[in-house]
């Protein structure tokens, strides 16, 4: 972790605690994320990894009574005290199951970040945004002829890339991917993984995943959570080959989880 502190991190989490009712979900998390790299969060179900990423865009507030203390600094601004709506523009999110808006066309799905908030871009602006975002999400070539069609006709993997394009359209600084391939077949998963490797050059990605080999393939850094605690965090190359903590070792070896 000391090695990481050298460059200025984009995200800096300081003694983050989350309590649901009486049960603590996250305990004293301290971690910082370097810019333009991919950080994967791994751990068994219920370890708090999903709660952890949901704090970054304040989605945890949607599900009632979570008590959160500590700080999450995004380029120095505390996310937890900021206005949640502007936080969500800076930190985009992609969910487990592809969830494009079924009643909208592909193009409008890409633009939905603007449309939802009452901004209707002019035709040329809109076209530019749609093309840029779809290109970034490696979907442009597949859908450029059917931008007016509804998104339901796309395959699962295409839908998930559409969701990524949708998130990228508002130019977030960080992209949260919450198990983005768990509902997809291996081929689609492969294409999403390639996409992640491409995207991390220009945006910081925080990836929650159950799939350890996926984490191994794409991560620059990896963090292991267990029972609401951050057990270990390190650069991908050492983390997966030579973990320091015996619990990480046991998890990676498939002895639990």
């Amino acid at each position, binding site marked *: 972790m000391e090695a990481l502190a050298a460059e200025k991190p984009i995200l800096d989490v300081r003694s983050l605690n989350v309590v649901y009712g009486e049960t603590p979900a996250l305990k004293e998390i301290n971690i910082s994320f370097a810019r333009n790299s991919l950080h994967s969060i791994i751990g068994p179900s219920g370890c708090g990894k999903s709660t952890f990423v949901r704090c970054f*865009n304040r*989605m945890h507030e*949607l599900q009632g009574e979570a008590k959160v203390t500590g700080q999450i600094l995004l380029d120095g601004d505390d996310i937890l005290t900021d206005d949640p*709506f*502007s936080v*969500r*523009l800076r930190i*985009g*999110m992609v*969910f487990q*199951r592809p*969830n*494009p*808006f*079924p*009643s909208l066309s592909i193009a409008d799905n890409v633009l*939905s*970040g603007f*449309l*939802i*908030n*009452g901004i209707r871009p002019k035709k040329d602006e809109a076209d530019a945004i749609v093309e840029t975002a779809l290109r970034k999400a490696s979907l442009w070539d597949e859908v450029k002829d059917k931008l007016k069609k509804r998104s339901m006709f796309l395959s699962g993997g295409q839908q998930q890339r559409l*969701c990524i394009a*949708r*998130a990228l359209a*508002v130019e977030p600084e960080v992209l949260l991917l919450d198990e983005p391939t768990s509902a997809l077949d291996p081929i689609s998963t492969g294409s999403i993984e390639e996409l992640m490797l491409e995207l991390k050059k220009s945006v910081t990605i925080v990836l929650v995943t159950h799939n350890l080999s996926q984490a191994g393939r794409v991560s620059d850094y990896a963090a292991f959570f267990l029972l609401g605690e951050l057990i270990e965090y390190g650069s991908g190359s050492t983390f997966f080959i030579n973990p320091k903590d015996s619990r990480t070792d046991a998890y990676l070896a498939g002895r639990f989880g």
Partner: protein
Amino acid sequence: MANLSSKGAGAETLLASPGASAPGGLGKSARGFLARTAERGFRSSLIFSVVLVFAVIVAMMFSLTMFSLPAIQHTGWSIFTGTNWDPANDQFGALPFIVGTILTSVLALIISFPFSLSIALFLGEYQRSGWLASLLTTAIELLAGIPSIIYGAFGLFVMVPLMQQWELTMVSSGVIPLGVGILTASILLAIMIIPYSASLAREVIRLTPQDLKEAAYAMGGSRFAVIRFVTLPYSFSGIFAGQLLAFGRALGETMAVAMVIGNQNIMPEGLFSAGSTIATVIANEYPEASGVHIAALTEIGLILFLITIVFGFAGRIIINRMGMRGTA
């Protein structure tokens, strides 16, 4: 009985011959005979009930039509277009009642809509649980349970004087301060149908997929934006179906309307005019009618029946298509 076998897991058990489902060597004994008889009796009574219910519906249509025949022959299509309803001279133009029925129901729907949609959003989106939600739910259930005659008494003794006072301030612009009339009836109807449309709309709003809402929130959407962008488009057809069903209910409502609409057999001239609906005319005239008059009243009853079937049917089809049968 043969039709039963054609489809479905349930049908199998219904059809399996009585003996087959009783295993073991009871077949020839007296107990076996009794068991088979009981089994056969039970199956027959099931089918008898179904046939009976179906026959009742068919017979209702048939009876209404037959009993209307003298009026249908006497008046023809002009029952829909005539504006003069004068039983003493065998004149049966029902247009004023048709207009009165549709006018009060449409107004009731318009008046009730902001309330029923708000309640549906409040209970389906904002406060799914908690004391405020249960207070409101209980209030809605109680409103739905109050008999229409009680609404009528409330309308007559409380709303009519209030409306009259309001109308008195408008006498200069030509309003006759009756208190009773189209608007009074519509407001009362609106209160009565809110529980129906609200509870159906609440159910469909609750069915809005959480992941779509989360997607919209994650794009920086405010709560209102999520409702406008995700919840309402998603639940639109269900809300619409609820409105259709509520409209059907308003069309057929009798007692409450009869007590506050003024019961004049005239074409309503405005919101403050007295009038009648099909249901109120039947309620007021049927007990003393005979001859062509009673046939004409039956005929407008048949018309009401058919209109409500159309709206009820349309609403049901939408609900069934949404796969949420049983919520209303």
